[in-house]
């Protein structure tokens, strides 16, 4: 089966509040424009399109259909959609190239998180019988998870703050990042709790945005870029929707996805982890066996900007960019979906030999 590579990545600026509609068109048109410019492809040349978005977030039915205006769909295109982060749209696009049916594909994700009350909207991803009727918000669910690890001595509030400090300092080199900053750990720990034991710095900001990635078969990849990021492994796994039945202090689905993606103790130059809460990065590092040598989230990661339904795809794009630019030889990217790291995707990319 055809090997597949990331050949280009583009993203919209990560913003606390964008003025556009919830259908993503205004954000996506310039993003696609960047991809056409960098690859020389046009919208007529892409073999398959796949998007990730959510109607609950956009507050309208079939918002992904409206988003198709950004592509231009006449004559008709081959297109699909997932009600999940764009990273899962990329998985479908990867599979489509693997089958040999197409040799280029474009995966994208978009979300206007600011249109509603994000942490409340995300309660709708919980079990609809016994949990969602109480409307537990996503920050509170993460708070419960964080305390389990604090009480078990697996991490401290200082460890969590260190993740935030590193993320926001690294974000200073990312022009698309929503939050940047150089506060130190003691300053952050002096802040009040937002959802005890979480402080605001422990939580990804509310971000509007969009991101897109062009994939190509390795046979064609060098037509579009000098250093394609070849996907050597990609897999995703999910855990039970029974929150109490999970060990929330670990991430067996991440470990399993990593194993299936061929992690195998491999060394990485860079890892982009989709941890919307500081303690979740600590869980992911442990599940993926990442040691101190790996540069984690050099883009600033989700704590510097986390556009819903594009945040995971952005991790793959940021990791791939380090290979496309020639800086890195091997990169790991991770995306998450659902409450408290319920579903996880791991993507391993390498520079072409």
């Amino acid at each position, binding site marked *: 089966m055809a090997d597949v590579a990331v050949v280009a990545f583009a993203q919209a600026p990560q913003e606390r509040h964008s*003025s556009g509609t919830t259908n993503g*068109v205004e954000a996506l048109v310039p993003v696609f424009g960047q991809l056409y410019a960098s690859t020389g492809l046009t*919208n007529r040349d892409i073999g398959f399109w796949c998007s990730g978005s959510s109607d609950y977030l956009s507050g309208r039915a079939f918002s992904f259909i409206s988003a198709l205006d*950004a592509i231009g769909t006449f004559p008709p295109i081959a297109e699909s959609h997932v009600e999940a982060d764009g990273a899962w749209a990329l998985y479908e696009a990867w599979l489509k190239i693997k089958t040999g049916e197409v040799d280029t594909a474009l995966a994208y994700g978009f979300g206007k998180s600011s249109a509603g009350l994000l942490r*409340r909207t995300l309660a709708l991803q919980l079990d609809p019988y016994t949990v*969602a009727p*109480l409307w537990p918000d996503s920050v509170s669910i993460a708070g*419960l998870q964080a*305390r389990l690890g604090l009480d078990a001595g697996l991490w401290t509030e200082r460890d969590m703050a260190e993740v935030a400090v590193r993320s926001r300092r690294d974000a200073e080199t990312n022009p698309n990042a929503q939050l940047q900053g150089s506060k130190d750990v003691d300053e952050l720990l002096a802040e009040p*709790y937002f959802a005890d034991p979480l402080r605001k710095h422990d939580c990804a900001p509310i971000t509007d945005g969009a991101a897109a990635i062009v994939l190509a078969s390795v046979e064609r990849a060098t037509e579009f870029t000098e250093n394609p990021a070849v996907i050597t492994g990609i897999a995703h796994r999910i855990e039970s929707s029974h929150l109490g039945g999970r060990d929330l202090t670990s991430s067996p689905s991440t470990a399993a996805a990593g194993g299936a993606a061929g992690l195998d103790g491999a060394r990485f130059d860079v890892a982009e982890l989709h941890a919307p809460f500081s303690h979740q990065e600590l869980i992911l590092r442990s599940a993926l066996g990442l040691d101190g040598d790996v540069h984690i989230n050099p883009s600033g990661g989700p704590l510097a900007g986390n556009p819903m339904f594009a945040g995971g795809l952005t991790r793959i794009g940021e990791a791939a960019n380090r290979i496309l630019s020639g800086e890195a030889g091997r990169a790991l990217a991770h995306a998450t979906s659902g409450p408290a790291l319920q579903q996880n995707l791991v993507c391993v990319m390498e520079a072409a030999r």
Partner: protein
Amino acid sequence: MTVTQTPSTPLSAPIELSFDYTRSLGPTLSAFMTGLAERRIVGARASDGRVFVPPAEFDPVTAQPLTDMVDVADEGSVVSWTWVPEALPGQPFDRPFAWALILLDGADTPLLHALDVPSAGAIATGMRVRARWTDSPVGNMNDIACFVPADGAAAPRTATATRVEPVEVITTPVQLTVQHSASIEETNYLKALEQGRLVGQRCPVCKKVYIPPRSACPTDGVPPGEYVELPDRGIVTTFCIVNVPFLGQKIKPPYVAAYVLLDGADIPFLHLILGCEASEVRMGMRVEAAWRPREEWGPTLQNIEYFRPTGEPDADYDSYKEHL
């Protein structure tokens, strides 16, 4: 042509979406909800011996349906908690409270629920808590109003409500408030309507004129180009006669809903045709806008109450066949 100013801020308005989800329960969750209606908490024993509360419907190891139901206590210990300084709509309280994962006596998995304490300082992991039941349980999660600290004394066994009929369906209302923004192009269009003008935009690639204008040409995927003022008259491309009454209907059937293609536009929009018998409406018929009184105008196409026949000769089919 009137110059259309680019607005700095798009028009924006809140919309409240609500829907009552009605869900069938199946045997396992039916046992749980029926238990709640009787002020009992029921779990299910899995193949690994663990008692899941709420019951999982399927065994996490073997994937077999779980049907070995076990009563557990309505009292237990806090396994984890988080403080909510500002409650959100739909949550069990409209004042500060805690969420807690609570391991009920007899259960092996913790249950998520609200904990009523005055401050975060009044909670600790491991503290004993007990369910506070609502007065009239009906068979859903809100039958447990919340949990409260269990004060040392032996828990007075909550009076069991009378046996009830099995609960087989739950209704969960969902309500979301979304602030919708129009695009810049839609904002221009709506503001022009407020002045009694119809404004479209031309795609710079295919040259087609869209009304309402779109943020990108659906054919070419490029942002729209020049604004185009359009007249308030055109033709009926296709139509249907509405004979069926429905909830919220404003006009007595039969009446005509039609696609109206304004002169100079390439995309028709849906509107009403009145001012003649429904049976007289035909494809290609020339129509003009019947505007509401100026003082009623707002940023909406409803400023045009309907379209009515002009009496001009019909358009040739060939002139609009591309727009059907």
